[in-house]
């Protein structure tokens, strides 16, 4: 047991075995991975193996010594594991770039039954290369941040074990070359999310939040499964490349009844669960019960984008089901606006960010829905930077405030937390879409294409712009209430800037929130500046262009851009006035529109509806089923039969006297008698 603390647990043999096993496991896994590569003289396979196995090793290392309180050791191993994966990701991404295509490997056949042949096969193409870079890169930073954040926790080793397990599953999800391996990761990240949300499980509410996340996600997963079945029985395969090729061969379906449309809709149910869209978004705000770095990694930057990634992964299939795409677009746009509006009225710093995440994910689905898959991936990436930044920033604030999360008790933190404030500021500028910050480019591309794409509609654009205005308002409100204005910090709390292990990740993510968008400068601007749309080139061949997209008028594109940026700007200014200059205004407005304010503040009573109208009645019905069907009806029937038997003869009376040996004897006699009867 690697513990340094003097707690009262004695070193039980279990811990010693665990510690030793973990080291053996480390050696075996790494050697196994490297050995596999060397034996097959296959550097790609070895890179894949290390990429996947490093976090798995980290999980075993920390998991088997789960009682250790040595946050530094546990955290270092976990961070190194994540960093090793990051290096492998760079190596694979370079290979993909050089090969202008996918790089694949297969470890073993997982399931072979009938026509179903599922391999533990992995592939990196241009889409997944971007994704693993984001996940392992941001992931490493968040692991590093966690060392400081969890240094006072009781069970840091367990925490880092879960974090590494999450990374492993996320990589399975991204790299799997077929729907089933993706599903393994898909459920795996859900499991880790459950474990991490409920990490402080002694608190009933936190444990309940974890459970809610898992079960809500399970609803989505059920849809995902149905999607897999549908696709398998259309195409006879679950392999992504084959599915996409067949979908291309068949061409677009019209109407709603087609099998591909059905499959896409089933899969989208899965996406609404994992990526917190209407109607399954309710788990994400509650998920903020977990440690804040977890919210940054899982519930902002990576796991929740899985649904978007899955759709992009299958972009030829979704393009073959335009009606399904319309559903995706509408759900995305409506979610973007609804969640943003709830964000306006929340007091918990993390809840604001949570609703913001739901809203931003809505934008990504809007992009997918209008066929702008590249834009979806672009926004996925920039959002990972600025939202991870802001979540970690909020973690730094909460850490400084001794665990306080209510922004009404903050204010004026700018002075005490200069680095946190400075980096948060960059995230704020990025999310409200100010040029030239990262969010501007990706969000603008989504808005433009939702207007211009043949799959788009001006209504979608309008919703998007409205959502952007709300976003600018609630984010400025958050900045103002947390960092600006006068201090409302309670006595006895002395905010202090966080240690370097926490501020370094903030700075790196801050820089990325500035420059991250420059790889996707729109043609309307880029043409004049001679800056290419690098990302678009990168995705060529992996992501299909929008069918029927006409060349656009540059003037129109710039005009729309101007509209959305100025609306967001005005909205920010308004929020600034509300929450810094004339702080009496918000209360007045809330009082004037009391009914509407309460509706929004209470999150449109969606949770109340789900619990009151669905879950509680279901539990009640189950109690009735048990009481009336099982106990009253079926059992009463049994007794009726028993009484009949009893009536038949006096023998039964002795049967009822409860002597076990006698029963056994009757059975033996019965068997013997029947055998005798047959035999002669």
């Amino acid at each position, binding site marked *: 047991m690697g513990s340094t603390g003097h707690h009262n647990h004695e070193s039980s043999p*279990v811990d010693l075995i665990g510690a030793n096993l973990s080291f053996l496991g480390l050696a075996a896994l790494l050697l196994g991975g490297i050995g596999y590569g060397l034996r097959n003289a296959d550097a790609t396979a070895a890179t894949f193996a290390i990429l996947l196995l490093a976090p798995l090793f980290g999980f075993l290392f920390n998991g088997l010594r789960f009682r250790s309180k040595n946050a530094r050791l546990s955290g270092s191993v976990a961070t190194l594991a994540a960093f090793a994966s990051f290096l492998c990701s760079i190596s694979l991404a370079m290979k993909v770039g050089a090969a202008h295509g996918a790089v694949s490997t297969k470890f073993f056949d997982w399931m072979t039954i009938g026509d*179903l042949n599922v391999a533990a096969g992995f592939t990196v193409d241009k889409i997944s290369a971007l994704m693993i870079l984001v996940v392992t890169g941001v992931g490493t930073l968040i692991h590093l941040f966690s060392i400081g954040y969890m240094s006072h926790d009781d069970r840091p080793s367990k925490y880092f074990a879960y974090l590494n397990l999450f990374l492993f599953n996320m990589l399975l999800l991204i790299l799997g070359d077929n729907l089933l391996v993706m599903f393994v990761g898909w459920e795996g990240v859900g499991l880790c999310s459950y474990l991490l949300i409920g990490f402080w499980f002694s608190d009933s509410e936190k444990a309940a939040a974890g459970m809610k996340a898992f079960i809500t996600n399970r609803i989505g997963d059920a849809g995902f499964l149905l999607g897999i079945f549908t696709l398998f029985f259309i195409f006879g395969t679950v392999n992504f490349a084959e599915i996409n090729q067949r979908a291309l061969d068949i061409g677009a379906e019209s109407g709603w009844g087609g099998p591909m449309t059905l499959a896409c809709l089933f899969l989208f149910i899965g996406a609404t669960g994992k990526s917190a869209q209407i109607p399954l978004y309710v788990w994400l705000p509650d998920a903020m019960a977990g440690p804040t770095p977890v919210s940054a990694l899982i519930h902002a930057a990576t796991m929740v984008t899985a649904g978007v990634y899955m759709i992009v992964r299958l972009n030829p299939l979704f393009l073959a089901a335009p009606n399904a795409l319309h559903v995706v677009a509408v759900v995305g746009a409506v979610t973007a606006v609804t969640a943003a509006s709830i964000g306006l009225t929340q007091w918990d710093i993390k809840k604001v960010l949570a609703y913001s995440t739901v809203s931003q994910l809505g934008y990504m689905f809007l992009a997918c829905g209008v066929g702008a898959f590249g834009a979806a991936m672009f926004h996925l990436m920039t959002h990972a930077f600025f939202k991870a930044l802001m979540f970690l920033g909020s973690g730094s604030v909460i850490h400084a405030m001794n665990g306080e999360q209510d922004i009404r008790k903050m204010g004026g933190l700018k002075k005490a937390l200069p680095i946190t404030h400075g980096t948060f500021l960059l995230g704020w500028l990025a999310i409200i879409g100010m040029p030239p910050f990262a969010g501007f480019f990706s969000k603008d591309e989504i808005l433009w294409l939702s207007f211009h794409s043949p799959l788009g509609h001006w209504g979608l654009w309008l919703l998007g712009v409205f959502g952007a205005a709300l976003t600018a308002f609630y984010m400025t409100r958050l900045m103002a209430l947390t960092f600006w204005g006068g201090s409302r910090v309670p006595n006895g709390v002395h905010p202090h800037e966080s240690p370097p292990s926490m501020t370094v990740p903030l700075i790196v993510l801050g820089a990325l929130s500035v420059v991250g968008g420059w790889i996707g400068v729109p043609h309307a601007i880029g043409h004049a500046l001679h800056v290419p749309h690098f990302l678009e080139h990168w995705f060529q061949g992996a992501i299909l262009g929008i069918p029927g997209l006409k060349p656009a008028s540059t003037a129109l594109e710039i005009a729309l851009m101007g509209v959305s940026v100025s609306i967001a700007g005005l909205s920010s200014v308004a929020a600034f006035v509300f929450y810094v200059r004339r702080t009496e205004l918000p209360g007045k407005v809330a009082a004037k529109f009391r009914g509407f304010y309460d509706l929004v503040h209470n999150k449109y009573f969606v949770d109340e509806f789900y619990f009151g109208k669905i879950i509680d009645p279901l539990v009640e019905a189950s109690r009735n089923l048990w009481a009336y069907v099982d106990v009253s009806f079926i059992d009463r029937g049994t007794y009726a039969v028993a009484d009949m038997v009893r009536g038949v003869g006096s023998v039964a009376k002795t049967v009822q006297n409860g002597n076990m040996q006698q029963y056994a004897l009757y059975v033996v006699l019965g068997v013997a008698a029947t055998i005798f009867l047959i035999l002669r």
Partner: protein
Amino acid sequence: MLLSAITFFPLLFALLVACIPGSRARVIRAVSLASSLIVFGLSLVLLAKFDRATAALQFVERLPWVPELGVSYFLGVDGISLWLVILTTFLTPVISLGSWGSIAAKVKGFHVSLLVLETAMLGSFLAMDAILFYVFFELSLVPMYFMIGIWGGARRIYATVKFFIYTMLGSLMMLLAIIYLMYAHHDTVGVFSASVLDFYKLKIPFVAGSFINPQTLLFFAFALAFAIKVPMFPLHTWLPDAHVEAPTPGSVVLAGVMLKMGTYGFMRFVLPLFPEAASYWAWLFIFLGLIGIVYGALVAMVQPDIKKLVAYSSVSHMGYIIVGLFAMNVYGATGGLYQMLNHGVSTGALFLLVGMIYERTHSREIVKYGGLAKALPVLAILFLIVTMSSIAVPLTNGFVGEFLILMGTFQVSKAYGVVAVTGVILGAAYMLWMVKRVFFGPAGELVENTGHPLRDLSPREIVVMAPLVVLIFWMGLFPNHFLDYSKVSIEHLIETRDNYQLTVNPSEATDVARTTPRSEAGK
């Protein structure tokens, strides 16, 4: 001789254990454990020698028993029964070691019962003569009655009576059906036979849409016996009571192996013997299976007793198996067979863990718990792993079985698939809710006020659980290691179900010819 050795060694060892003085509890336990390990070793020899390229019956042993009636001592194994045999021999030592904590009184009687039960269960899976099968099938009830009735809880008599009424009713019908089939063989071939292989050759008249025809009646007679055993909704109410009253090892045997005698019966007898009736009535069984999945899950959700919750979860899980088998495609059948093994491993493990909790707190009432994870971290981790297996999280065994069953169901009808898939959601709901109430949150009254601190798992208990946890991941990661043995047999069953024939492995044919009873030689 291998199959006879596997089948009857436990009985011999039971006699050996019976000779040890009852006061020497430790010797009894050690001998019993060693015996079951020897039998497990023998079954591994069987596994190693098993030819997975053929669907034919292997390791056949056949001796005339009552030649006039064509009844023979006839054992054989194929890809359908192989893993059920291994499951039985694997779980018995686990149960034997696990019982050291839960069975304190009448140790000798318990271990004798366990070993006799092992013989009966193995015999049921290996017998290829219907009468022999019936004898083993019934024999297995006797030690089970003892286990519940002697080592059981407060309402054990009530539970055994219920068990008695249900199971006797079912098996009597089956016996009548077997006798009918023996006569039918006499009428068509001219001699009696109770060989299942001969039964397969019979063409039993079937009339669609009517009950009163031989095949439909026989189908329902067999199906009733097995449906009770499984148990299928609405014949399931004996199970929760039996489980709650049974001692931990009894519950593990019951859930782990005995329920599979029912699903195995469907695969071995009902589907291939009565192909038209099975196809015609498949909808009914899928329908009842689906109700079982959903109903079992819903009722499990509201159980106040942990053990009863696990028992109802069995109703739900066994519903999956039934649906998979009656989907009658290769995915459903493979998933069904795999789920039989999964359920044996994971529900067995759940009952063991619930038993370990009970031994520490002497209560199973969920409301009295809370915060157990803090008090017993190792037990909590194991419980969580087994929970994941039970709710079919990928990379555990449960996922492979459930996925294949759902896929097979979906192939039959999208609507069935959609209903079945709700079990995936409800399963997570009732298990995780229970885990939350028992393990998480603030310490409950049983965890807080026990007077003495709760001790986490002992090394013995970890040894009991370790093989189950290893299997959970092994079966989840490498299902082909297991399914490769059954693939040919299952495909044979599905593809030729309309005219299913089972032959004896040709390489063993000479051996068989020598011992073939007159009944077959005569035709």
